[in-house]
């Protein structure tokens, strides 16, 4: 029998030949298995939501993509696809069946939102779905082939192919997600896989169907410059959204700049320090005495290195993840001095405040926030901003315009939206002309809203 056995060298060759034949097939099978599973987990998301533009409360709609990430029906998508203003969310499964879903939580800073499928409906209708698996973002390399899956322009289950163009792209935008800030606390995956409107919220996956990112943005008009939130951040954020419905971050008010090439000027060793381009007026850092041009050397004893733009989001994230209200020790270089500061963190707030529409007035408004007041150099954060007026309605007839800040009605100062709501209620009950004081480009004008 031994003779029948081929010599070991030949066996080796044969194995090699077989491997040569079989391995590509095996890889193809693995890819299609993983990929098929992934495809079963990608959904189309149709959202009906309230919008407070143009002086009215209106319903609008949008289409995005999403990926199911758990057997209990959690779906990961973009914050700019599904926000708290959504009133109806409908998810189209891979089977083309439509199922309702609810918003679990959203986080515009990372442009992520989590939905939950209506499992009762899924069971009742005996539908099925699969959940996708995450890949390891840390192992991604530039040039690696990736696929974007989603619903560009409503074209369900579209797959586009590209590579990771850059796996660590800083890309902050103060008004990137429906006017909300985004991208300050994370870097992005850049890909040349075609990403079009409607791809938002869909997964960026490897050849074996593992989710490595959530596609969210692209340069419109550019050729294939797409950006995705890395999966590790998506996992962390979604877990917290599931637990708390929102993400609480800490704020110090530091505005970092890039230290690159300035080390010599500040007499620093290379890879040391976080340069402050500025300090938000009225912020904890400003109150503690920090100022533009300071270089933060350590934060709670941890050395900082803000040499390159790519290094700033992780530092911002480190600050954001500190407990709200906790003291932070900063070692700061100012000129030739090294100073110690203790700064108490505050809760991070968005520039976008609560929105509302006063329909009889044809007026939609938004609360002025601390961040908005700071950006616009307002004296304080009181007042509401006019988002829009409906032509022919009392607010428009009075002369109010988008961007005006209402500060007073009659003799009652309007500090918060709630104040204006109660004034409106008494107007609705007993309509009478109202004298409105509003600020436009720092000019105070008076208007009369008549029934």
């Amino acid at each position, binding site marked *: 029998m031994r003779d029948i056995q081929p010599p070991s060298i030949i066996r080796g060759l044969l194995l090699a030949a077989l491997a040569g034949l079989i391995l590509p097939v095996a890889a193809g099978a693995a890819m299609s298995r993983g990929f098929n599973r992934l495809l079963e987990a990608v959904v189309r998301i149709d959202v009906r939501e309230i919008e407070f533009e143009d002086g009215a409360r209106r319903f609008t709609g949008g289409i995005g993509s999403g990926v199911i990430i758990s057997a209990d029906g959690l779906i990961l998508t973009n914050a700019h696809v599904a926000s708290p203003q959504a009133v109806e969310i409908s998810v189209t499964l891979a089977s083309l069946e439509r199922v309702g879903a609810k918003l679990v939580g959203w986080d515009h800073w990372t442009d992520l939102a989590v939905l939950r499928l209506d499992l009762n409906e899924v069971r009742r209708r005996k539908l099925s779905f699969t959940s996708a698996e995450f890949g390891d973002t840390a192992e991604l390399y530039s040039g690696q082939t990736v696929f974007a899956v989603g619903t560009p322009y409503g074209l369900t289950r579209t797959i586009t192919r590209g590579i990771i163009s850059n796996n660590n792209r800083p890309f902050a935008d103060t008004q990137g997600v429906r006017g909300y800030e985004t991208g300050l606390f994370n870097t992005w995956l850049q890909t040349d896989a075609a990403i079009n409107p409607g791809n938002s919220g869909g997964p960026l996956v490897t050849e074996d169907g593992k989710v490595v990112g959530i596609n969210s943005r692209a340069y419109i008009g550019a050729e294939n410059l797409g950006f995705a939130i890395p999966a590790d951040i998506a996992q962390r954020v979604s877990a917290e959204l599931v637990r708390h419905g929102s993400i609480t971050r800490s704020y110090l008010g530091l505005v970092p700049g890039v230290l690159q090439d300035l080390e010599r000027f500040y007499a620093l060793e290379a890879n040391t320090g976080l340069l402050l381009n500025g300090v938000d007026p009225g912020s904890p850092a400003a109150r503690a005495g920090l100022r533009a041009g300071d270089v933060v050397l350590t934060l709670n004893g941890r050395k900082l290195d803000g040499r390159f733009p790519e290094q700033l989001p992780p530092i911002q994230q480190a600050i954001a993840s500190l407990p709200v209200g906790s003291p932070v020790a900063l070692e700061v270089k100012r000129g030739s001095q090294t100073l110690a500061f203790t700064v108490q963190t505050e809760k991070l707030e968005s520039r976008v405040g609560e929105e509302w529409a006063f329909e009889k007035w044809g007026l939609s408004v938004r609360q002025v926030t601390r961040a908005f007041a700071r950006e616009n150099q307002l004296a304080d954060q009181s007042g509401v901003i006019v988002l829009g007026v409906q032509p022919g309605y009392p607010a428009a007839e009075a002369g109010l315009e988008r961007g005006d800040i209402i500060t007073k009605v009659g003799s009652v100062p309007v500090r918060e939206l709630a104040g204006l709501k109660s004034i409106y209620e008494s107007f609705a009950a007993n309509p009478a002309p109202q004298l409105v004081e509003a600020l436009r480009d*720092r000019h105070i004008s008076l208007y009369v809203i008549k029934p």
Partner: protein
Amino acid sequence: MRIFRVLFLLSALAALGAAAAPLPELFNARLKSVVGVEFFVQSEIDRQPVSVLGTVIDNQGTIILPGAAIQPGVAPAQLRDFKVYRPGSTVPANAEYLGQDAFTGWHFIRVEEKLRAELVPITAYPALAGDPPVSEEWWGIGLRNKDEDFMPYFLSSRVAMLMKLPQKTAILGSEVAGPGLPVFNAAGQFAGLALTSFGQNFLVFSHNQNGSPIMLVNVEESSAVMLADEVLPYLGRVPQSVSGRPIPWLGAYGLQPMDPEVAKLLRLENQSGVVLSDILDGSPADQAGLKDRDIVLALDGQTLPRLKPDHIVAGWFGQQILLRRPGDELTLSILRGTDRREVRVRLGDEPKLVREADRHYFERLGFTAREFLYADGLLHRVKPADLRGVAVHFVKPGGPVAAAGLRPDDWIREIDGTEIKTYADAIARLEAIEADKDRSEFVLLVSRGGETSVLRVKLI
């Protein structure tokens, strides 16, 4: 009685003759009151020619130019080589810039002796008194461009309406004169001065535009004429210095009209008013105790006029201030909340203007630094007590500071990590950097829109 009748007939004929003097003759005679003016605005890196029209106002060769002839912020030292051309002439005479009057906005120049004999001031003609009847026909002079030797041409139109803007202004059916040039009636009386023309709304239709609204402004001719009564009393406001000072200052910012609906709600029926949005720190208004949001209803007992459009009353109020002098006192009747009160204000001197500010151009660094003024403090929302540093007046495109991201109106607060206390301090530091050929970089701390940033400027 026959002799009387003859006399009467003669005088009637004479009157008829005056009224019916042939327009070509009048036109040729009135050409002696108009000129084409050319000058250059010298900036850091270029020299822009400007061509405008002017009207002669006295026998000393004084000529007024429209306020729009020179951009605000241009320093008198930048205005070079004023040349005055008579219509159709190629031979210029030199002129000197005298300054801008704050009330009328006119720029004044004075032409050299040799041309004065050929000029006739606008005051030499009888003037139209009072309001003209609507539909009266007026005529005026237009001048072609310099490359056509400022050749004069005749324009005429009829008075369509009168408006107070706040000066009484006749709007004619079509263009009647070059902006800044006089307009006459059929008898040759001086009727008024053509203003810079107003914009007119049109729709544009083309193969790719379907009725898009646009506004057109005719820069060569105007159909708006400020009446002679509003011009003649102010011809004597020839600036005493090139700065145009003294300029009175109240220190209330953002004057907003009170519209009739608001007046009604405040139980101020048939009254007009101006809201003082912002009382500037340390200003005469502030010292007098005026507060943000005060509504001015009367000035020295005279109630504010009701003018249309509503915003004209704010212009009226501003002009009433400018008609006075620093040190003058005036009484404002104001409404604060529901209280009415009288406030006595002593006007001050207008803080230094951009055109008066010291500035210095740094060729190698590629920018002009300027004194940080009260107005810059307003822009950057800084209290007068905190006015430090220098303002960026000009940035040379492609220069080192432009590459670093510096922009005009930025506020430089630190140079190489040292806080700038005074203009002189900043200039000394920048001069040292400019002169140091071994210097390869310097660092600025700059504010813009409430945000600061550290800029590293690489020198080549």
